[in-house]
């Protein structure tokens, strides 16, 4: 019967950068939600990693818009989205949501670290004293009352931040899910799936980094915090994967025209990245691993190694999921008669090299942040 796509569909418009963007915002939203689990919901076990997750969220946030800017045909007009927003478009709110979230995270970090800054200001030498003086906006006062106020504000901001973080990422899902022209994207479940997969990627990246950093620094892992994160990861990944599979199942069962095209997408161009990579290896594999870690009493070291591997596997799962959504959706022709093909370049403007650089930036930034915003002071305080 042949393969037919509309002539303009030979070019895939949204490429690697648009895969990277929801991946990074997923980490942003997920990491923030983990920190809020402690601040708002009072999960004391997560206290040792609450700061780390908050600052991680900020580091990812700083670079989240970069792939979008690089993708735009006219990046110098990016601010048009704030200056002349066209409110019938789902995308027009992007700038405002992004801005609101950034303000919340910056304020939360500031109030969270204010007491630390004051202590450091008093013990710092000349140049650093000035830096902390500026960071403190000139007010180096600290007493029990100010600590209480700071704490109250952090709690409030974390509370407001949860829905905003969900909106930030659920909104990306909505951008895809609301495109009626695309049979692979158009589903109201898309934004819910995105929120859950964001939490999965957020917790995964935190577990991965936490174990990695502790391994490098040869510090003792806070087993209680790690176990709690693993349990949450297990729960959230089950919900995320089940939602996605249920969506596919209902699509297949309905046997509509959409499915007639999509079944060839899944068994054809997306077979390895979706069926094998995302579903069988990464989702099923990490589900089994997490089940073993949570339900069976393993030696601590083995359990931690498995947690490290699983979080890595789930990070790959989330990348594959973003790829399969963003690229997969554009492979299906709107003529429902065939598929176009896409192979990312390495050195081009939106190629893999640029993607890798943007992806690594938050981690490098995080390393620098550790000097200004120490991540794990809580454990030190406990020791003292």
């Amino acid at each position, binding site marked *: 019967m042949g393969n*037919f796509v509309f002539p303009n569909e030979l070019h895939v418009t949204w490429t690697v950068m648009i895969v990277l963007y929801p991946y990074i915002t997923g980490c942003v939203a997920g990491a923030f939600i983990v920190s809020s689990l402690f601040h708002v919901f009072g999960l004391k076990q997560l206290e040792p990693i609450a700061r780390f997750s908050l600052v991680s969220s900020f580091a990812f946030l700083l670079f989240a818009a970069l792939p979008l800017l690089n993708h735009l045909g006219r990046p110098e007009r990016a601010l048009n989205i704030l200056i002349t*927003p066209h409110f019938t478009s789902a995308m027009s709110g992007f700038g405002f949501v992004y801005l609101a979230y950034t303000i919340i995270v910056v304020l939360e970090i500031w109030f969270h670290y204010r007491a630390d800054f004051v202590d450091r200001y008093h013990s710092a030498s000349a140049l650093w004293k000035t830096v902390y003086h500026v960071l403190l906006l000139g007010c180096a006062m600290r007493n029990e009352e100010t600590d209480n106020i700071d704490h109250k504000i952090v709690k409030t901001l974390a509370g407001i931040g949860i829905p905003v973080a969900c909106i930030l990422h659920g909104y990306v899902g909505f951008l895809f899910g609301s495109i*009626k022209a695309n049979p692979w994207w158009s589903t109201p479940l898309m934004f819910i799936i995105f929120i859950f997969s964001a939490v999965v990627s957020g917790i995964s990246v935190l577990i991965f980094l936490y174990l990695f950093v502790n391994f490098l620094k040869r510090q003792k892992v806070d087993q209680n915090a790690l176990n709690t994160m693993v349990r949450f990861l297990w729960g959230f990944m089950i919900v995320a994967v089940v939602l996605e599979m249920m969506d596919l199942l209902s699509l297949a069962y309905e046997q509509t025209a959409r499915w007639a095209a999509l079944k060839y997408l899944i068994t054809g161009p997306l077979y390895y990245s979706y069926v094998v990579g995302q579903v069988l290896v990464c989702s099923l594999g990490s589900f089994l691993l997490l089940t073993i870690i949570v339900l069976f009493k393993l030696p601590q070291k083995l359990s931690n190694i498995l947690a490290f591997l699983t979080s890595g596997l789930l990070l790959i799962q989330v990348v594959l999921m973003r790829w399969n959504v963003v690229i997969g959706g554009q492979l299906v022709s709107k003529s429902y008669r065939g598929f176009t093909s896409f192979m990312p370049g390495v050195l081009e403007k939106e190629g893999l090299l640029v993607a890798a650089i943007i992806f690594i930036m938050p981690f490098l930034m995080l390393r620098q942040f550790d000097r200004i915003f120490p991540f794990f002071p809580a454990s030190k305080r406990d020791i003292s």
Partner: protein
Amino acid sequence: MGKKGNSITRGEFVRMALFSAAGVCVGSMIARGNLKDQPLERIPQILTHFDWAFIVDTTRCIGCGACVRACAIENKVPDGYYRTWIERYEIDNNENIYVDSPEGGKRSFKQNRVQNREIVKGFFVPKLCNHCRNSACTQVCPVGATYHSPDGVVLVDRKHCMGCGYCVQACPYGCRYISYDLGTADKCTFCYHRIHRSLATACVQACPRKARVYGNLKDPNDSILAVLHERRYSILKPEMATNPKCYYIGLDLEVI
């Protein structure tokens, strides 16, 4: 004493700053709400007497590709992209459907695609932007760079578009693309620069079979209305509810 009386505390300053910021935000939102999208007095009244539409008679098209070539030259369409194109449909005696559009039909269809099979039905379908009344592309444009002109044509403001590509995704008909030399979205404009000088669109002008007709739906004497009143016609993807203004005569069920 006097100095202290006149100065404000840090807390008061922050509070005042927050209130001022909130006031500016709310004020500009109200001002924006009161702003009409397009002040009517600024629209040349003559434009409101037009509602441009298009008819494609698939029974007349011979797939010569003259329209695609004319459009590419007239509008400087970049290679590999199409504001208009022609699809060839061939159906064999086993009811298998073969569709193709090599280079958008620009060089016509010189070779038979289907060999060793008896073709029982074959036809060509030219396609172009449908200039939908309820267009998905204008709805999703985040900066309002794509819009409906007062005379019913969907246009792109090249000086405002930021090239995000959301409209390309939203168009159900594959009519849009991001022009690599402009960095902005591009598509058929019904040759807006021509129809305003009473010149036919490039594709209509080039078609040797009069398979393409354009006209003004608001003019009761326009031939387009006569054709629509005489012939049975259809639109593409009616389930998308975009309400297209490109009408197809003799459209087969197989055409999507």
